């Protein structure tokens, strides 16, 4: 057997601590995790790449965690006892809020890491609220106290004021220099509760996450609540209603180690002959097939895509490669969905569903980077509820599919609750942005010297470059987080774009009536710049239904001819022609108009002013 096998007694509950780290991005979560692994000897120095837990290339580069990762540390505490510390590193982004909530449900406590020079940010709040909801004991940790700008006292009172937890015992550390890491380990042991659980009860375990490994197949990360889980056991996934016989049972130290058995309170993995990650559902309950537990764990929710967009290969010949690549990504990411779509403008491609905008960006980036595919993405769209006059309700993923308006009784759109923290200087501009995006202000308060605004916003206005605008008007200082709240009726209309009198389906979108004209005008202006002059004049129009609300014209080309004759050098002229022909292949033929690929990308990326 290629892995070391340690027939182990399950660890006594009182010597186990399960915890997670919650933080705003860049406050030092990964650095702290690395320090903890290093100090407890999980890896020797040679094996330590920094940020061990962020293993995917993109995670490393962007410094965000996409999949939950786990590591089991062994620590001899000041009381002389050996403890097993299980750290689950959660995805720290709003798109993965459900995944975060399941990770937090698998642990008893959380370290709340706050950058002592920055203070509380939007994701600090969002994540700590998830932890509180999951009944976690919270230990505040003030990081980066090595920085001259660090102001631990101010941040402590912020934590107390805003979050309402006692911060007087906050651990002050520098994850970078290693200062105070020992105190963090002691706090984990002394301040976090040990797990409960009944080893004699039927198996009950929480499916925390799963991923695809080329060698092992699907690896399932679990937290055992009651009973034990063993190699060879037949288990049942209660929501998926599937039965598997387990191949391997083990832990990550962070190296994978087979231990054959996990008991109550423990966190580890199993493998079975599971083909794809889609067969496993985060939040599912795992039990023994023959001796099942009476009741599944609460809180399960199937993955729901929130944002959709079309992805098309730039080169039509890449279609099959794109399909294969998406299949591979889905192996590892069940929350990403795709189905074939055809567009008059863009040809064959896929309509894809994502948990959010970041998720969309990550998938797109992985497709282009890991699979070397050039893609065109259409404007992200939310999922609309369309109620027909006959009472039917359709979920609309693609604005191009909007039914005939006369048959529509009402269109409803998803709304979010957004929290924005910002320095006072940018508050005015941010309020205006939210107001422009049809936001409804719910609350405005202060967190120390930062303003905290809460808004109800239509998600449709947020997927449309809201982040980018927010970042630019606040020079990057504002932080943002949201949760989905409800569906509300909206006065939404389909904005279509016509090039040379033909509608370009890939550019159509649903927008609020009040914004339609401005949006249409900008779209026309952009396209006018992006479509090169042709031999004829090209009208560009934006329309709602049959009504033209904006128009622009691409002037006709007037001069394009090689003057000189270069003697008999026909080769030079032919090469020029060949270049032109190759250039044409990069265009999308639309009627007699050729639209460059990047025109779609840029037109869809545009801001609204």
């Amino acid at each position, binding site marked *: 057997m290629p892995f070391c096998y340690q027939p182990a007694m399950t660890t006594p509950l009182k010597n186990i601590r399960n915890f997670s780290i919650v933080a705003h991005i860049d406050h030092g979560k990964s650095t702290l995790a690395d320090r903890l692994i290093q100090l407890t000897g999980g890896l020797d120095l040679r094996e330590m790449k920094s940020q061990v837990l962020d293993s995917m290339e993109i995670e490393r580069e962007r410094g965000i965690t996409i999949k939950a990762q786990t590591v089991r540390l062994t620590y001899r505490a000041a009381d002389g006892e050996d403890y097993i510390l299980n750290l689950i590193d959660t995805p720290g982004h709003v798109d993965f809020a459900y995944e975060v909530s399941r990770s937090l449900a698998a642990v008893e406590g959380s370290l709340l890491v706050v950058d002592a020079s920055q203070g509380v940010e939007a994701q600090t709040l969002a994540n700590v609220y998830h932890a509180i909801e999951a009944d976690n004991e919270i230990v505040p940790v003030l990081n980066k106290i090595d920085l001259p700008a660090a102001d631990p006292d101010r941040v402590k009172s912020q934590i107390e004021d805003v979050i309402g937890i006692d911060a007087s015992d906050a651990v002050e550390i520098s994850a970078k220099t290693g200062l105070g890491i020992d105190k963090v380990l002691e706090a984990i042991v002394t301040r976090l509760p040990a797990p409960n659980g009944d080893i004699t009860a039927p198996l009950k375990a929480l499916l925390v996450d799963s991923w695809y490994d080329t060698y092992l197949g699907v690896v399932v990360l679990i937290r055992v609540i009651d009973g034990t889980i063993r190699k060879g056991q037949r288990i049942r996934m209660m929501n998926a209603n599937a039965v598997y016989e387990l191949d391997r049972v083990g832990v990550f130290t962070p190296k994978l180690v087979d231990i054959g058995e996990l008991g109550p309170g423990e966190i580890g993995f199993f493998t079975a002959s599971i083909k794809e990650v889609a067969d496993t559902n985060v939040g599912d309950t795992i039990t023994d097939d023959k001796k099942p537990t009476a009741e599944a764990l609460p809180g399960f929710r199937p993955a729901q895509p929130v944002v959709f967009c079309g992805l098309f290969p730039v080169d039509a010949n890449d279609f099959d490669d794109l399909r294969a690549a998406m299949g591979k990504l889905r192996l590892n990411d069940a929350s990403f969905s795709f189905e074939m779509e055809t567009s008059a403008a863009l040809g064959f491609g896929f309509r894809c569903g994502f948990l959010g905008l970041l998720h969309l960006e990550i998938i797109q980036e992985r497709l282009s980077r890991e699979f070397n595919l050039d893609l065109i993405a259409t404007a992200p769209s939310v999922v609309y509820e369309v109620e027909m006059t006959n009472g039917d309700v359709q979920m609309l993923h693609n604005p191009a599919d909007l039914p005939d308006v006369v048959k529509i009784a009402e269109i409803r759109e998803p709304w979010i609750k957004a929290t924005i923290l910002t320095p006072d200087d940018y508050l005015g501009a941010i309020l205006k942005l939210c107001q422009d995006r049809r936001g409804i202000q719910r609350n405005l308060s202060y967190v120390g010297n930062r303003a905290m605004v809460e808004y109800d916003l239509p998600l449709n206005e947020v997927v449309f470059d809201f982040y980018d605008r927010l970042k630019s008007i606040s020079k990057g200082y504002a932080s943002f987080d949201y949760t989905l709240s409800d569906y509300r009726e909206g006065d939404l209309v389909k904005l279509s774009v016509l090039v040379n009198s033909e509608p370009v389906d890939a550019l159509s979108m649903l927008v609020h009536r009040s914004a339609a004209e401005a949006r249409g005008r900008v779209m026309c202006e952009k396209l006018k710049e992006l479509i090169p002059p042709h*031999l*004829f004049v090209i009208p560009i129009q934006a329309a709602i239904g049959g009504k033209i609300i904006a128009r622009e014209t691409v002037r006709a080309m*007037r001069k394009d*001819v090689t003057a000189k004759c270069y003697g008999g050098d*026909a080769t030079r002229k032919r090469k*020029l*022609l060949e270049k*032109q*022909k190759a250039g044409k292949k990069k265009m999308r033929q639309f009627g007699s108009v050729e639209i460059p690929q990047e025109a779609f990308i840029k037109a869809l990326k545009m801001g609204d002013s």
Partner: protein
Amino acid sequence: MSADRGNDLFGVYVHWPFCAAKCPYCDFNSHVHRGPFDEAGYVAAYAREIAHFASLTPGRHVQSVFFGGGTPSLMNPRSVGAILNEIARHWTIDERVEITLEANPTSVEAERFRGYRAAGVNRVSLGVQALRDKPLAELGRRHTVDEAVAAVHLAQSIFERSSFDLIYARPRQTLEDWREELSEALWLAQGHISLYQLTIEMGTRFYDLHRAGKLVMPDEELAADFYELTQELTAAAGLPAYEISNHARPGQESRHNLLYWRYGEYAGVGPGAHGRLLVNNQRHATATEKMPFDWQARVMAAGHGLVTDDILTWEEQGDEFLVMGLRLKEGISPARFTALSGRRIAERQIADLKSYGFVETLPNGNLRVTEKGFPVLDAVVADLAA
């Protein structure tokens, strides 16, 4: 050889690579040499290379010879004679053969005109470039307007036919400036004139100046206006365009230029010369070593200076036929396009372009670009070739 694929046109292009100085806009294969130069020895290389091309193309009938450059008017007339003799030794010569020599209109060079005439040259093409002294200086030319005009007059008195070149749409030139200058030129011209819009070529001094923003070129609108004005004035003067940049009284067209544009067969002799030769029923694209003395060394060692000899595919021949042929007012024969390329021009493309008035079909079946289409010829050709 299929009758449609060839067209019995055969000519010889002779490249003379030397110039007295390099003009700042020029990217032709021209070099300034210093120190002693054994011209007779250099001409011997031409003789060797002509023999080589002749061995590939036996039995051809030469309808035109063109001495281009560089500055062929720096050649000793005896060198020109020697080369012409060599050509006549290997191929038969048409009795109406056109023998053109490109000349720079300085007084020094004009002195040799009679010598060229005696050697067999019957047409000169003079690089006048401008009829204004200041622009001439900016173009780096080593002659004045007076010298140029004198050279044109002299050429007209010595040769049966002559032509001269002007460059227009120059920096700061206005339409009015050009109207006057071109009108004067059309008085001066006899049967033929070439009018080129200034092109910024990579690797030239003008290119660097342009990139640095120190040389402002007319925008697309103004360039189009320049072009239109040029068509108007030349047509009114009885020298309409028969090709994008070439104008002639009917019957005075350059036979050599027509041979290129009609996609005939030509041998390219001398450094950096291009040729198109039909050998074993395949069209070869040839090009020789560009550096003058490397070329000479190669020829002396191997009998030729070829560095490129590609057999063109059907598609490439079709492309070349279109890019060259559609420059001509007479248009192209779609049947010959099909014979060369094995395919047809897409009907839909032709119909589209016709609907905009950019191309038309002539009574003889030829497809040609209209006056409206010429200013956007490159785009039209790209559509037809797509």
